[in-house]
């Protein structure tokens, strides 16, 4: 387990399907993801297949975020689209328990994944896509050291309007510098 101060990361297991089912059927959770999902509802069997494919995919790595105290699972985080040739990957994170939002737990999980990506997997660059209206996420990514790279104009349709998405990234040097600065 990768341990932070309040949360830890453990590998996603196929037995986590029920949690994933609950999180990815929660409109409050899906709302922020920038219309990534085909549909608003996923059945238990579909989610089970999806989780199996996530755990088997060699091009990505997924962790369950758990509270260190009590082991309550609160979300999922991972590196997807791992590009070995260019040492790059896409960060994806969902804190699926709205009661745990706004406590800096996602930021802690991102810190652990960045350490894992750069120090263990020897990546050079980690990037992400975020819906432009997801201010909570954007400020969390900035605080984690991600830099704005650009806008995908009118990227998806949501709440009756075309909405932008943003791309952000962090390089291994940004991350090391940030860690040195904070001691």
């Amino acid at each position, binding site marked *: 387990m990768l341990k932070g101060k309040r949360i830890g990361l453990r590998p996603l297991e196929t037995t986590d399907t029920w949690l994933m089912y609950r999180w990815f*059927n*929660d*409109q409050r959770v899906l709302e922020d993801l920038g*219309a990534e999902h085909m*549909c*608003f*509802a*996923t*059945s*238990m*069997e*579909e989610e089970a297949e999806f989780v199996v494919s996530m755990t088997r995919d060699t091009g990505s790595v997924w962790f369950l975020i758990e509270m260190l105290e009590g082991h309550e699972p609160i979300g999922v985080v991972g590196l997807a689209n791992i590009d070995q040739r260019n040492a790059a990957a896409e960060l994806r994170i969902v804190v699926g328990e709205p009661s745990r939002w706004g406590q800096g737990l996602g930021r802690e999980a991102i810190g652990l994944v960045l350490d894992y990506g750069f120090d263990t997997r020897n990546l050079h660059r980690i990037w992400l896509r975020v819906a432009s209206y997801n201010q909570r996420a954007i400020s969390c990514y900035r605080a984690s050291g991600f830099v704005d790279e650009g806008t995908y104009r009118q990227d998806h*349709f*949501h*709440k*009756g*309007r075309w909405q932008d998405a943003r791309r952000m990234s962090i390089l291994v040097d940004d991350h090391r510098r940030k860690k040195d600065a904070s001691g």
Partner: protein
Amino acid sequence: MLQGKLVRLRAVERADLPAFVRWFNDLEVTRFLLRSPPMGMEEEERWFEHLRDREERVFSIETLDGKLIGNIGIIHVDYHDRKADIGIAIGEKDHWSRGYGRDAINVLLGYMFDEMNLERVWLYADQKNERAVSCYEKCGFKREGLLRHNHFKNDEYADDVIMAVIREDWRRAHPL
């Protein structure tokens, strides 16, 4: 999962199938539906197995306290013309005429216009199905025409009303 005032729309689960079979074997429930009894459990299981490969997206309708009462589906989506047709059945008869179907349709319409970015949502209703037609009208559907002898049901050819709600109707009733 989408939530309205009275109902939630969620994915169809295998455990829902016995209720579906019960409803679709009930002559009163299927009176105005395209599908007629009998329906077998194995047939319904085969339908469920292939649900994901099918173009139509079906959702279960449950009350806010979790009772399964019906289903609703987006049947064909045409992304070129940005239109789709829908179908709905409230299978639990003690929940008829109490606004559950209307709430389910409203929730689905919101998703279809504001998330799927569609221009037109349409359906056929049996002209004699007054309860349904008035429900669709309350949801914003307008009658567009009559399709004579459009389907054969219960020993006779029946006429269908074609009804649709277009984006500007929806927006007027549900401003951003």
